[in-house]
């Protein structure tokens, strides 16, 4: 209930600002007489999908011997086929543009179908080992399958799943945006993360440039830059820390500048934070006096804050 908005609506109608036919519905929402549960239902569907896939995972783990591998593989496969079959049946025709979901459950049934198919493939791979020593390639197969499904059925959620599964194939957990590189990464994983990040960013750029599935671009670019910056930042504790740090500084500055010009606010934030962290690491290397370190963090944010306020005036990010 929003009494200020409820008070304003009749005045705005009187002043001719609000169309009279829209006013009753707006007024009911403002008075709390009409409540949308659209996003709550979507969230519940998402939780439902998580519960089902989690339950299926446990079923396989706990009943592997009792049920038998063929029955499990066939059962999960059938469930996946049922979900995907429903999706295929109700899906609107393909378009390179944004296609509205035919109904609330569409995205989530698609997600469920893809997850079950992926789980089935993983199970078959573990149990029957068709790929043998190249077992990890099944992640690539899943990533490609998810990407195709995402493009065909226009699902950003499944597209993000495709990207993160591809990153997993290259040894990078996208769920932690490259942060796990801090603890267990060697250079190989780090370079893989950077390569994945660059690939995702380029993919996003291509989508935008070609005008095909433009609304997927933010997913690819954001995940890509998070992986690149996370990988570079993780190198700051390595023996050749300075090279990674300089890389992070340059990448951060470049991203911030590019995002500033393109008015991409979240990317601008990533760039600023990355560049500041890298600069602080370079300047404070070898500084043993605690007071100097604190002084740096006391003083240097002030010009950053001033710069941000000036940048905001130029960019005018909507509140």
């Amino acid at each position: 209930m929003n009494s200020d908005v409820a008070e304003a609506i009749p005045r705005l109608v009187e002043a001719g600002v609000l169309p009279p036919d829209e006013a009753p519905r707006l007024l009911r929402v403002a008075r709390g007489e009409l409540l949308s549960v659209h996003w709550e239902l979507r969230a519940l569907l998402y939780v439902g999908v998580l519960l089902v896939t989690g339950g299926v995972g446990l079923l396989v783990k706990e009943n592997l011997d009792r049920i038998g591998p063929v029955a499990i593989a066939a059962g999960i496969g059938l469930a996946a086929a049922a979900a995907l079959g429903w999706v295929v049946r109700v899906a609107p025709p393909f378009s390179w543009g944004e296609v509205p979901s035919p109904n609330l459950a569409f995205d989530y049934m698609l997600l469920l179908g893809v997850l079950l198919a992926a789980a089935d493939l993983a199970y078959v791979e573990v149990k029957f080992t068709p790929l043998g020593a190249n077992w990890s390639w099944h992640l690539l197969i899943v990533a490609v399958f998810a990407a195709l499904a995402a493009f065909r059925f226009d699902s950003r959620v499944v597209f993000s799943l495709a990207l993160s599964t591809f990153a997993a194939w290259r040894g990078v957990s996208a769920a932690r945006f490259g942060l796990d590189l801090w603890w267990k990464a060697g250079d190989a994983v780090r370079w893989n993360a950077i390569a994945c990040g660059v690939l995702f960013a380029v993919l996003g750029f291509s989508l935008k440039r070609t005008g095909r599935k433009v609304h997927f671009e933010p997913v690819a670019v954001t995940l890509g830059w998070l992986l690149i910056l996370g990988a570079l930042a993780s190198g700051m504790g390595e023996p050749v820390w300075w090279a990674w740090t300089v890389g992070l500084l340059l990448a951060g500055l470049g991203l911030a500048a590019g995002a500033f010009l393109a008015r991409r606010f979240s990317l601008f934030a990533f760039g600023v934070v990355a560049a500041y962290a890298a600069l602080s690491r370079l300047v404070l290397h070898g500084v043993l006096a605690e007071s100097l370190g604190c002084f740096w963090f006391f003083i240097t944010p002030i010009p950053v804050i001033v710069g941000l306020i000036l940048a905001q005036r130029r960019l005018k990010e909507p509140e």
Partner: protein
Amino acid sequence: MTPAAALADRNGAVRAAARAWKEAGAIDVEALAAIEAAYPDDRQGVGPVFRVLLFLFTLISVSGAFGFFMAIGGGAMNNALPVLLLLFGAGLTVATEFQITRMKRARGGVEAATSLAGIGFLAGFVFWICDTSNLKMDHSLAATFLAAAFLLAGAAWRWGYPLYAGGAMASFLWSFVAFPGARLVWIAIPLLAAPILTRFSESARLPPSHRDSCAFALGVALAALYAAVHLGSLDSHLLEERQNAWLPSSPVLRGLSIAATALVPVIYLAIGLRSRRYVFLLLGAGTGVASLVTLRYYVHLAPLWMILTLSGAVLVAAVFGLRRYLEAGPGKERHGYTAEPLFEEMGRRRMLEAGAAVLSLSPEARPVHEEPKFAGGGGSFGGGGASGEF
């Protein structure tokens, strides 16, 4: 809040609603411009990304300044710590007041950071006083929580930060945990406060920020009430950690707790559904899930995989059914509920969904350094693929 800030807050609510109407296509650009002209905003604010950045860098600067003064003082500064805490706390509070009332800043990030840091330093000062007064640690913490509750409540009232109101309620309730009878307090205060906060959260006399503050405090109070009557919290003596002997085992008490664990979510949901109050609906759903998990914990109904799969399937089916029920109603609504999105920004929410999918469904990374020797263990469910082990 000052009258000027309250007026700006009210105008801000209308402007925000108008932007949502525009997003949903209910009004055009000209109408939006006319509404923004009719309800002007003289506050200096920035967008959400810049707000987060300004908040972050202000906190870094304030922490750096405090650390710097501590470091240059060396050992001598330990004696001056309370003075420094008080100076920083008071200084930052004055700075916040100046920014909000004189500079007319709102949603700017900097003033939020200075207010939070100011409250933190003042609470630290209170803790220092208590700690050096030979109070027991429990009592020192209780006094600190109480002080934090008043500071947060004052900040919510003066500067209009709803989150602080929720924090104030949580701190206030937590300050009783060190004493006997905390559970009773956690039951009594929410029961007394809930009707008042519910009324204030809808009062047209209050500006939107104060109404939201009441709603936040109400949410925390309802959650605390559920925690106090919950069977798990009773069995684990969650609120009697330091006063274990105060709560003797009693079958009657346990029976009441079992009944309350089952009933409280139902009551919240019933109130929420009947009155369409979002706080009650949210708390009802959340506590309902918690009670079902509690039931599974105490009563072994079926294997976990079956519970998860069935509950997931039931949930999906229930959502399908509910959606159909709502959409079949006149104007795609029933009893004041609709499954249609109403004047909401779709793009940003869908980006959040994509982010959530990456966080919750991504498969584990395969080990890159592994030599290509297959050992029959490369899959786990839960993501868009598999790795690790079944």
